[in-house]
């Protein structure tokens, strides 16, 4: 179980141990870290229009970074997320549709990369679960209220 921890750890840190960061840059990065935390991870791309930038942002927010799994592509500083953002931008430049871009990601990383996976057999519990819970809660509320009324 523990064997995977090392595997994930380097990848998820904002500053990867990869030899590309010089010591001075590391120190500077450390000093700046507190200021950067609130900022978005997205690097400035030369967007053609505001619409394109909006599409980029909304797609980056709905695609999961498979390295840091509770972060979207828009949030993550993982090197893979950087690569995928670059790919996403290239595809937008290429004139590909949002659906094509989602399919591109799903073909490579599976339904898991979408924060809103399609409704299918294996995602039925995910989508239906909240409704089922709501029905249970409603049902038990009705039962309890009726019992109390009878008791009065």
């Amino acid at each position: 179980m523990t064997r995977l921890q090392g595997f994930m750890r380097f990848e998820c840190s904002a500053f990867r141990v990869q030899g590309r960061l010089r010591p001075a840059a590391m120190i500077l990065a450390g000093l700046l870290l507190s200021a950067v935390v609130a900022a978005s991870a997205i690097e400035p791309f030369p967007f053609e229009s505001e619409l394109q930038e909006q599409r980029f942002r909304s797609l980056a927010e709905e695609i999961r970074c498979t390295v840091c799994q509770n972060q979207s592509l828009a949030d993550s500083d993982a090197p893979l997320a950087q690569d995928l953002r670059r790919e996403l931008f290239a595809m937008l430049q290429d004139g590909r549709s949002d659906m094509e871009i989602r399919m591109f990601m799903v073909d490579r990383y599976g339904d898991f990369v979408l924060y809103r996976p399609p409704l299918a057999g294996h995602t039925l519990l995910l989508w239906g679960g909240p409704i089922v819970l709501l029905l249970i809660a409603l049902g038990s509320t009705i039962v309890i209220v009726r019992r109390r009324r009878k008791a009065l």
Partner: protein
Amino acid sequence: MIRMLLPLIVFGGLLALLIAGLQTAEERKLVQSPLVGKPVPEVTLPALHDPQTTRSTAELVGQPYILNVWGSWCWACRVEHPFIERLGQEAGVPLVGFNWKDEREDALEWLERFGDAWSFHLVDFEGRAAIDLGVYGAPETYLVDHRGIIQHKHIGPIDATVFEDLMRRIMQMRAEAGS
């Protein structure tokens, strides 16, 4: 009596869920690749030792092979390295290195230091080909059969148990390729 015990029973249930969840937490982090069972994407990349030449997965069609994603920056790749050496010696199929987002000098130095058991290395500096392969971490090990179909993908370092499993699968692929 049962009514009074109900909260305790519910609490016990939640506790059991939590413990079960913790036990499989690491496993659930692994993203099963949709590419398993599908043809390996054709990637053509520069070779590591000789950057002027390119190597491709296309040249390996017709025989089973292992594709191992590694990088000199990857701590866990060092952990699995003894098993990579064994794969290189014992598997009897090409062992292709996929040098991911690395610096050439660092990679060559790493190989010098720890040993180069791979048949050859593809260099993916940009990480573009890795996206097509669905790589999301290093190390990752793919088994591709003689028809070019990805038969198996192991995510994370290879240990003794994984090594046995991989060897069993490789032998099966070799048997299939022979027939």
